[in-house]
């Protein structure tokens, strides 16, 4: 019997972007309010898991042609790089700083270098979660 998942697939097309927007929001929210790289990465991974549930592994691989082990390695490199970058300014390893900048449309924003470290955490969490799920899903 051939099953028809049209309701799940149509709902996924709408819900996926809401989850991705929420994950980006909670990622940038993490400096002053609850959130951060870990939970943002988990929400992005769960959005891609929803895509895998509604469609199949081959299609997700065609949409997102990344090797997720490389994503994990890139995240670790970014995290190490923010630590090593503090040596350029003659301060101890992993020193963080922040400053206020004014942008044309957005106005005054506080930009912290902790965000760069958080990007590394985000990439590692997304890569590890999706590597685990893809590896388990592939052998039947």
């Amino acid at each position, binding site marked *: 019997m051939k099953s028809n998942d049209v309701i*799940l697939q149509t709902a996924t097309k709408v*819900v996926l972007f809401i989850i991705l927007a*929420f994950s980006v929001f909670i990622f940038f929210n993490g400096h002053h*309010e609850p959130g951060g790289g870990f939970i943002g990465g988990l929400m992005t991974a769960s959005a891609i898991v*929803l895509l895998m*549930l509604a*469609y199949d592994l*081959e*299609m997700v691989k065609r949409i997102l042609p990344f090797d997720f082990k490389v994503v994990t390695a890139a995240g670790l490199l970014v995290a190490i790089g923010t630590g090593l970058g503090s040596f350029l300014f003659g301060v101890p390893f992993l020193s963080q700083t922040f400053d206020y900048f004014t942008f044309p449309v957005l106005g005054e924003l506080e930009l912290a270098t902790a965000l760069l470290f958080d990007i590394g955490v985000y990439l590692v969490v997304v890569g590890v979660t999706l590597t685990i799920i893809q590896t388990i899903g592939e052998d*039947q």
Partner: protein
Amino acid sequence: MMNILLHISAVIIAVSILIALYRVAKGPSMPDRVIALDMIGINLISLVAVVSLILETTAFFEVMLLLGILAFIGTVAFSKFIEKGVVIERKRD
């Protein structure tokens, strides 16, 4: 006055979670248990809302959205496992 009302509603939501837990333990078929788990998730969202009103904080608002998303994805995964036997298909034909 408002505080008493909030505590009463928290107790009522807890009782409703207990009733759903009875259905999880007793439920004769697998879909009964999945629906009861989904109901527990949605009740937890309202419990978090009431608790954040009692504590007078906005720190838990992300938790509510998060629980809604996770309850949805968990229910979809369980129902796909019940219907097809696999959660993530390799190639859909």
